[in-house]
């Protein structure tokens, strides 16, 4: 890979992406068009996030890549290897050790710091897309702050279901101005978006970048009498006992027995290392030892 520039993209392209990022940080929540490049992985596999990370990384950075909260899901592995090859940066599975974290569909459970950058992979950047298919129309709606349609949708949900029927990619209002799609993170993660780290969002196929500077005001849309709830499965983690982390439901057998485990693998591993034990941890670690042998 020595034929390639640091982190694969040429310097001109990185410059173009950085300009878009700066614009995004200056106008939190606004979707900045950018000339997305064709990358060696397909659109839909995180090319937007990869381009943003590539433009952001410096040789001194430490990179963590997660998908569904885990470092070992296949696509996270693939992207981490890509940067190991093309950028030669240190990589880590520990959230606290990373300076740049690229993520798909989750925000890490551990609070992030001012010296960290979180890069999100975004499929559809436009929060109004499924209410209004035309891009010309939605850009106008954003520029005129015409978000009535969004609230109509929430109203209709309550009229029909008795509750807002959006569980992920839950729309937010940023600094009281732009309505933004936080990417398909579960709504449980929405409150975390008011954080100390810089958050960058990359949509490669749709050619948009947007951003949230540190300590940005991010409010999930709701009604006063139907307030937003950051809900999750009412269960602790069966491995580490955590009560406050988002859980994966794992089906154990034909009888439908199931187990709940932290989606954030680093969070769970750190807790277990610190001595926390969940209800099924003993049985699970025995099975782990069997497979490792």
């Amino acid at each position: 890979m020595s034929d390639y520039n640091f982190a694969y993209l040429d310097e001109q392209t990185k410059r173009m992406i950085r300009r878009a990022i700066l614009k995004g940080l200056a106008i939190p929540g606004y979707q900045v068009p950018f000339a997305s490049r064709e990358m060696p992985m397909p659109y839909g596999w995180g090319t937007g996030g990869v381009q943003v990370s590539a433009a952001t990384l410096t040789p001194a950075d430490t990179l963590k890549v997660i998908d569904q909260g885990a470092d070992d899901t296949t696509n996270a592995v693939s992207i981490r290897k890509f940067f190991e090859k093309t950028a030669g940066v240190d990589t880590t599975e520990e959230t606290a050790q990373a300076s740049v974290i690229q993520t798909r569909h989750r925000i890490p459970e551990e609070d992030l710091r001012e010296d960290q950058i979180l890069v999100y992979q975004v499929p559809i950047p436009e929060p109004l897309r499924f209410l209004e298919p035309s891009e010309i129309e939605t850009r106008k709606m954003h520029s005129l702050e015409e978000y009535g349609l969004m609230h109509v949708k929430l109203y209709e949900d309550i009229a029909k279901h008795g509750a807002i029927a959006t569980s992920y990619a839950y729309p937010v209002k940023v600094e009281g101005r732009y309505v933004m799609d936080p990417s398909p993170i579960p709504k449980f993660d929405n409150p975390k978006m008011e954080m100390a780290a810089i958050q960058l969002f990359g949509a490669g196929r749709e050619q948009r970048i947007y951003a949230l500077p540190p300590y940005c005001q991010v409010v999930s849309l709701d009604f006063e009498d139907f307030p937003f709830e950051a809900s999750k499965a009412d269960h602790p983690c069966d491995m580490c006992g955590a009560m406050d982390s988002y859980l994966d439901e794992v089906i154990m057998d034909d009888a439908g027995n199931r187990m709940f485990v932290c989606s954030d693998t680093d969070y769970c591993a750190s807790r277990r290392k610190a001595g926390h034990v969940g209800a099924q941890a003993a049985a699970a670690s025995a099975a782990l030892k069997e497979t490792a042998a």
Partner: protein
Amino acid sequence: MYVAVKGGERAIDNAHAWLSEERRGDLNVAELSVAQIREQLSLAVNRVMAEGSLYDPDLAALAIKQARGDMIEAIFLIRAYRTTLPRFGASAPVATADMACDRRISATFKDAPGGQVLGPTFDYTHRLLDFALVAEGEASAVERGEARAEPTPHITEFLNKEGLIQTEVDSEDVPGDLTREPLELPANRPLRLQALTRGDEGFVLSMAYSTQRGYARNHAFVGELRIGKVPVEMEIPELGFAIEVGEIELTECETVNQFQGSKTEPPQFTRGYGLVFGQSERKAISMALVDRALRWEELGEDNLGAPAQDEEFVLYHSDNIQATGFLEHIKLPHYVDFQSELELIRKLRREAMENTTPVQEAAE
């Protein structure tokens, strides 16, 4: 027993190894060479060059070999490669009027200067499987004639002389580059043409077909279809003049479409245009039809609501790399979001059932 899913890295490595094996196939069968693909599957090579937006038959042939014949996968390889190439500049516009035509036909006139030249076409073949091709043998000798030397001016020039067809307006403007700037709407004709020439052949074909069946019909006649090589020239700053840097094969299609005018304004035919790398007729003709359909607004026609008239619809869905990427990405894990949906639906079901039970109790 719960075992955390690990070993993603090993799984990927094994998958790639198996893929390599499948690509090679039966070891007792001779390996395909890139040269064989380039020479004997040239129409596939053309499509990969056109949609990859990169003219290099050897690279396209390699991509097809590596992609095991999956054309979109091959196009993806070329696109990704193209991204890494440095740009030295832009060529001068190619002069297709100077094309050495291997094939040149017109549906609008029985004959014209330059003649009707069939070239290497499938058009009049009978689609019967030729089992003689199963045996690899010597190619039979083909009779050779004199190479054509006469100039072949564009058919539309003749219509132009009478003022019968709208002239394309010459412009000094540098067209925008679709691969360097994000697509923003409304797009202009140069950007639409770029999107169409590199758009998925199947998609553009279907859109063109729809216009023929009445979804914004524009009465297309193939004014001219020409295929052949053109020189590519570029001005070199260090030299101060333009030199020929190579030649490429192009397919150009000009359609003559529905005329416009009124009782007081003399009517003229309108035009559609298609230009594609290599011999790619189906694509060039499709492109010309869709180009014409998308011009409804600048030609003052009605928006009939046909898909081929909808610039946003056509341009946003014509790129097969974007399309397949997004389509296939649904194979990736989405269990975190699915978990949220599970929680939501369980909650709503609980509430719905709570709302119905009191009635039942009263009835009992």
